[in-house]
């Protein structure tokens, strides 16, 4: 069969045959490995571990684990310890997983200065490292969109921009992540109630309760939710050991993930990782309930807008720009 050099994946038959070949090759390898395992004893089983790389007790505990909001404190502690043991077994890393409750009297909000954002994607890099996202998976909580100046057409935005140097003249950059809506459509869409809005305004996901139906992804107007087709592949030395049950703990494969305003950090008074990574200071994070906070100053004194405000989702993520007069 001839293969066209021009566009191997684009043209139906050739591209398909390529994937078919790859699939068959993989199948052959698996078959060979299985045969070797059968011949050489239980080598493969030891590498994988019984009960999906877990002990029987942990496997049963995970199977019968209840919804996060229905679990007692002891059950949550047991779940956290299971998560830590699993990470130790799978990655060989001692992580610390905890369940940090929301701080009373705090509702988080975010503001982003689009006059300052230069499209460096440093926030994306910081987010990946902090939230233990797969290094080559397509799951990235922040998307930096490149738009033409003077336009606001998100459909015409460029997500995979790759110039030699940013900012490109005549373009501006619009980072989009979970807006932590006050009226979240994703929560309404979830058939298992695996996602909900916490008291501090953060929309969280119980990754163990999510069935991966992806209804929430279609409900979200901001393209903020991502389905992990593979369990995150991270070099063990790069795994962030400070994790949170509703935040950046190692996620199982086949669930929906999204930005959670770095609950593992912000509920302890720290800034989100994207704010820390931003080299231009475009990001302002804070407590909306505190009238003397920085975010309240921005909301009260700057020209702010929210994305797709007409949908009534009440996002808690604002964009603002510098005044023209100030230099």
């Amino acid at each position, binding site marked *: 069969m001839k293969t066209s050099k021009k566009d191997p994946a684009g043209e139906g038959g050739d591209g398909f045959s390529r994937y078919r070949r790859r699939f068959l090759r993989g199948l052959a390898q698996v078959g060979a490995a299985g045969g070797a395992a059968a011949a050489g004893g239980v080598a493969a089983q030891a590498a994988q571990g019984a009960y999906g790389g877990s002990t029987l007790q942990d496997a049963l505990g995970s199977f019968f684990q209840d919804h996060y909001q229905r679990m007692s404190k002891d059950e949550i502690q047991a779940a956290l310890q299971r998560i830590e043991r699993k990470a130790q077994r799978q990655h060989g890393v001692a992580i610390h997983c905890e369940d940090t409750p929301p701080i009373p009297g705090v509702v988080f909000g975010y503001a982003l200065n689009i006059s300052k954002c230069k499209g460096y994607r440093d926030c994306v890099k910081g987010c990946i490292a902090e939230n233990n996202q797969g290094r080559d998976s397509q799951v990235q909580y922040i998307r930096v969109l490149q738009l033409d100046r003077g336009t606001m057409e998100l459909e015409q935005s*460029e997500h995979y*921009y790759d110039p030699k*140097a940013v900012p490109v003249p005549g373009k501006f950059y619009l980072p989009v992540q979970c807006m932590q809506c006050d009226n979240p459509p994703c929560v309404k869409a979830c058939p298992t109630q695996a996602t909900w809005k916490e008291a501090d305004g953060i929309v969280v996901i119980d990754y163990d309760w999510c069935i991966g139906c992806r209804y929430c992804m279609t409900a979200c107007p901001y393209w903020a939710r991502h389905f992990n*087709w593979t369990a995150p592949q991270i070099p063990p030395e790069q795994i962030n050991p400070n994790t949170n049950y509703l935040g950046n703990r190692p996620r199982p494969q086949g669930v929906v993930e999204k930005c959670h305003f770095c609950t593992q950090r912000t509920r302890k008074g720290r800034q989100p990782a994207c704010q820390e990574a931003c080299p*231009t200071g475009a990001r*302002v994070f*804070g407590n909306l309930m505190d009238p003397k*906070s920085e975010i309240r100053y921005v909301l009260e004194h700057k020209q702010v807008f929210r994305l797709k405000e007409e949908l009534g989702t009440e996002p808690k993520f604002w964009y603002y720009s*510098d005044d023209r007069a100030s230099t």
Partner: protein
Amino acid sequence: MSPSIRAALRRPWLHAAWLLALLSGALCAQDTTTLPATAAAPASSAFTHRPLRDNQPPPLGPVPTAPEEFKGYPGAIPFTVVPRRDNILLYPCSQCHNLLPLNTLPRKLIASPHQATLQHGGGRFWCLDCHQAKDRQWLHTIDGDKVDFNDSSRLCGQCHGARQRDWAFGAHGKRVAGWTGERQLYACTHCHDPHSPTLKPREAQAVPPVRAGLEPMQRTPHERVLPWQRAATGKHE
């Protein structure tokens, strides 16, 4: 009828005398009104109106001797600035400048560790507009206040007032540790080179990966070629 007019009627040459007298009288009157008026006007106005300064009420309290210092914006959350003086490469400046002769003449720096040209301000500035001439460990404001290198934001705010206000309130610049607790800010000079403050374009981080087996979506201007037009051409994508 008056006797003079009667006389004039009797002696016609007297008419001419009368007319001459009247005309010369009118001319003299004009001269007296126009000519001295230009010279005497300021004297008369100074006499009637006092200058505004004299009409003002006397100052109330004692005149402050020292000029008032800028103490920040009222209402802003109190903050501290991350010190930066010890990170400056050539600090302390006195280690060279105590030995060098003082030359206050604005010129291009050629043989020196400093930058030859000063981009900031587009050529409007010269080193000693911000740096103290005599004591190089310090900066100075336009008023002549000595300013430490750690407080250099005071200098920036002299021109960039709106930015300084945004920075003090949190809409510009970056907070260091957490969203709550003690507020510490990065100074202007942490991000901006004071001698060339515009940030240079640089390379972005890695492009987001695409799912295995797919390619980045091509941005086709779908409005220009509508689906039925595409179908009419017979070519399928």
